[in-house]
């Protein structure tokens, strides 16, 4: 490695500039503007202390959107993990047939985000949709709380299927064959094989998928925006969707900033806790 004065800074300048202009500056600005009333073009008008937070908490929309988001995550994360695990275990052994299955499971990735939302919107359409008419059902998929949530859940499972499937499949296939052989010789049945041998060995990928599932479902916005438009009666208005509506539909900039400030505080707390937990764990090992 050589020592030069200015060159590395020049090379880093674009990245650092972007980090400051589009992450740290808006971050600080959000915290500051959450204490101000804000004009329509984003200028800070006057200091209102906690008024934005107060009016945010005085209506129960915020609490409701948090509840909607959490409820979705509670159903989505386990279902997502189980279906993906099931699909990749079915395809694990390489053969001529498995290639066909693999391509099939991987193709949902080809349908882009809003296309998938639109297709599902039609599939679940209560009067015209193929799901109701082919299965002779009469379920109000979009306009009832349960129906809207179930169709949203299925849509999100579909959206995440392709990428999670190939991640988990490649993890399963990279398991050392000799371990599996040894377990087979010792008479392990399918169940113990999966629980005691395979799952522990793919734990890093599995926890990555779970982590991404939690993250994605807590931040979910676009699927309810297109599929259910937040309805019925805000029953699928997730947290970020509520924030979007506040800022870009009803121009409540101050309250929007307050929500973001709360989310940032949450992110910072979680990462600090995670770090503390991690260092303690390592200290135990050393």
């Amino acid at each position, binding site marked *: *490695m*050589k020592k030069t004065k200015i060159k*590395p*800074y020049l*090379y*880093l300048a*674009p*990245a650092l500039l*972007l*980090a*400051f202009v*589009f*992450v*740290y500056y*808006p*971050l600080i600005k959000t915290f500051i503007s959450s204490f101000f009333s804000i004009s329509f*073009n984003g200028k800070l008008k006057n200091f209102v202390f906690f008024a934005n937070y107060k009016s945010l908490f005085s209506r129960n929309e915020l609490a409701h959107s948090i509840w909607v988001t959490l409820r979705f995550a509670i159903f989505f994360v386990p279902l997502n993990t189980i279906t993906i695990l099931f*699909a990749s275990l*079915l*395809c694990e052994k390489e053969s001529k*047939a498995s290639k*066909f*299955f*693999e*391509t*099939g*499971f*991987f*193709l949902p990735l*080809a349908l*882009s985000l*809003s*296309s998938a*939302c*639109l*297709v*599902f919107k*039609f599939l679940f359409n209560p009067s*015209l949709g*193929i799901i109701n*008419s*082919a299965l002779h059902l009469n379920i109000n998929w979009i306009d009832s709380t349960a129906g809207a949530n179930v169709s949203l859940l299925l849509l999100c499972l*579909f959206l995440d*299927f392709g*990428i999670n499937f*190939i*991640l988990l499949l490649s993890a399963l296939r990279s398991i050392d064959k000799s371990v599996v052989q040894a377990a087979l010789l010792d008479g392990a049945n399918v169940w113990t094989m999966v629980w005691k041998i395979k799952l522990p060995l793919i734990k890093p990928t599995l926890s990555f998928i779970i982590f991404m599932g939690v993250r994605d479902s807590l931040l979910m*916005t*676009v699927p309810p925006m*297109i599929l259910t438009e937040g309805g019925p009666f805000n029953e699928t208005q997730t947290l970020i969707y509520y*924030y*979007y509506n506040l*800022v*870009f539909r009803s121009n409540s*900039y101050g309250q*929007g*900033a307050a929500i*973001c400030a709360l*989310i*940032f505080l949450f992110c910072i707390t979680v990462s600090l806790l995670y770090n503390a937990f991690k260092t303690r764990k390592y200290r135990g090992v050393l």
Partner: protein
Amino acid sequence: MKIFKYIITTLFVLIVLFPIFYTLSASLFTLQDFTATPARIVTSQLTLINYQRALSHNYYLRYLFNSLVMAVLGTTLRLSISFLASYAFARFNFKGKDLCFLILLGTLFFPSDTLLQQNYLTVLHLHLTNNYLGLVITGLLGVSQIILLRLFFLSVPLSLYDTASIDGAGDYLIIKKILLPLSSPLLASLALQSAISFFNSYLWPLVITDKINMRTIQIGITMLGFSESLDFGPLFAAISIILIPTIILFCFARKTIVKALTKNYLYT
């Protein structure tokens, strides 16, 4: 037992693929097919009229073009910026190196959707709304790419750099003759990932464009106006026009794509 497994897998695949199959099939439907009882799975007559109508929509091709420009421009800029930054981290010792790295790493903790409002105001003041640069600008910082590229550059043997330096090669030559050829497989997979993520982005383009001829396909396709009149055929055709090339690509280049997506998958 084996047959049982095949049956279950086949059923599972069919369920997962049903939305895709139905999209392709419905793109050939006539208006009556959508309301027929019992529900139709295949069209009653073979006609490409839906495709014709989708393609002759005033803005459909424009939306598609915008998305392609956005994906190419965004990917090129993001990769160049990440490449330079990771080169600096891997090749130089300088004051504040760790701090710079931490600053970049720190951006990963804050979900980009929550920065929407302030970034919108920034881009508004920069007069970049309804502009291709404005469309990609908040996605140009690829910290996970910087991490991966830095690791790769560190794995290049030092002697290779030293020999080049002794021969008088500057950074430009080292990058062009050594690093670019060596890292091209990694760069290709990073490019694929970021092209997909730019192409699929929805919220930012929705906020930052209000002129109809600057909308991207992800937003435009929800605003084509066919489904309002219950005329779903052209909508499914419009979706299929993007879907068919993608499926062909996925079937033929499956191995390459799977490898690219799994080998160094880090969320951006």
